[in-house]
């Protein structure tokens, strides 16, 4: 086995070159290249983490915006509903007031008409008495030749009409 048979003859050369090569690897690669590569990886990991955080906050922001939009929409809808209800109620109240006013007016007209009718009726009745009294005077004069006093005739007519009235 040359590894052991040759060990005395080659150990110095093996160790010498190994230390040189391994020293170059340690200082040239392990100490100078490796930290840079690790820094690159760390920077990338940090960038990914930052981007994720940014995306998360953008999403939260979007959620907030949507929430605000929705609540504004809800408020607007509620306001619209309220104003239509108000308008409806107002219209109903106005209509009621107008109906009432008209009602009062009509009642007054009705009452006035009734009074007029009553007055006309009284007048008509009075003129009937006059006409009847005159007619009675004439009739009595023509039939019996007796001149009846005007007031007497009127009294008789009134008596005769009394059950009618």
């Amino acid at each position: 086995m040359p590894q052991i048979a040759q060990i005395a003859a080659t150990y110095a050369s093996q160790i010498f070159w190994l230390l040189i090569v391994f020293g170059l690897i340690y200082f040239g690669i392990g100490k100078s290249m490796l930290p840079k590569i690790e820094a690159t990886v760390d920077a990338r990991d940090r960038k990914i983490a930052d981007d994720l955080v940014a995306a998360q906050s953008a999403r939260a922001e979007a959620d907030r915006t949507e929430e605000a939009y929705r609540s504004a929409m809800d408020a607007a809808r509620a306001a619209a509903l309220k104003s239509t209800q108000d308008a409806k109620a107002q219209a109903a109240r106005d209509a009621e007031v107008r109906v009432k006013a008209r009602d009062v007016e009509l009642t007054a007209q009705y009452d006035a008409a009734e009074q007029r009718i009553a007055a006309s009726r009284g007048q008509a009745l009075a003129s009937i008495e006059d006409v009847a009294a005159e007619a009675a005077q004439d009739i009595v004069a023509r039939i019996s030749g007796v001149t009846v006093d005007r007031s007497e005739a009127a009294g008789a007519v009134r008596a005769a009409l009394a059950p009618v009235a």
Partner: protein
Amino acid sequence: MAAESGKIDPMHQFLVEPLFGQHLVVGGYDISFTNSALWMVLTLGVLWVFMLGGMKRELVPGRWQAAVESLTGFVGNMMDANIGPKGKAFTPYVFSLFMFILFANILGMLPIGVVGLHAFTVTSHLTVTGVLAVLSFSIVLIVGFAKHKLHFFSLFVPHGTPVVMIPLIFLVELLSFLVRPFSLGLRLFVAMTAGHILLKVLAGFVINGLNAGPGIAAIVSIPSFVLMIGITLLELLVCAIQAYVFALLTSLYLNDAINLH
């Protein structure tokens, strides 16, 4: 590999030879640039190119950058899970360890033997894995004693040990602690060596079978070749697992040193 005369030495692949036959001796030590050193440098080069692909630092990574980042993330998560936030300081070391072993293992599996080159698996050498193990163990000791001073020895007395048992438990725990660098280095060395020997032996069967004529080739070479494909895939898995195990155990030992229990 000596294919001639049917003699194939599965151990030849582990032979360390100075390139171009040149020896470089400094202060009594032979530090020649060997095939082993060449493959270490190749590992460094390939690893460097691979990591450069991860340095584009784009916000949206391409395939290459994503591959590099998945490996750094893998080691980073392992350190975080085993040690916690304090483990971050040791991520460069464990990452270097993991990547060096992984790339050395995989480069050693390259089938460049078919074009006449010889792949060499750096991590199949006890010297190399031993140095890495001792390095990890030294860091554990230094960190442990620097952080907890002599209190570090309480690592060897688990919570709730009866007072009578403390000396015995202390010895057992100390022994298991001291065995760590050996198990760490030997595990990788043995896994890589065994896998490569097995592959070379099977490859020898294939070639010797082919040399021995069509009849033998049919019953020896073809099944061996099919088996080799399976073992190669298994070895690639072992390459990754052994790198992972080495890094994982190092992080667990560091956890002992940093957090005690």
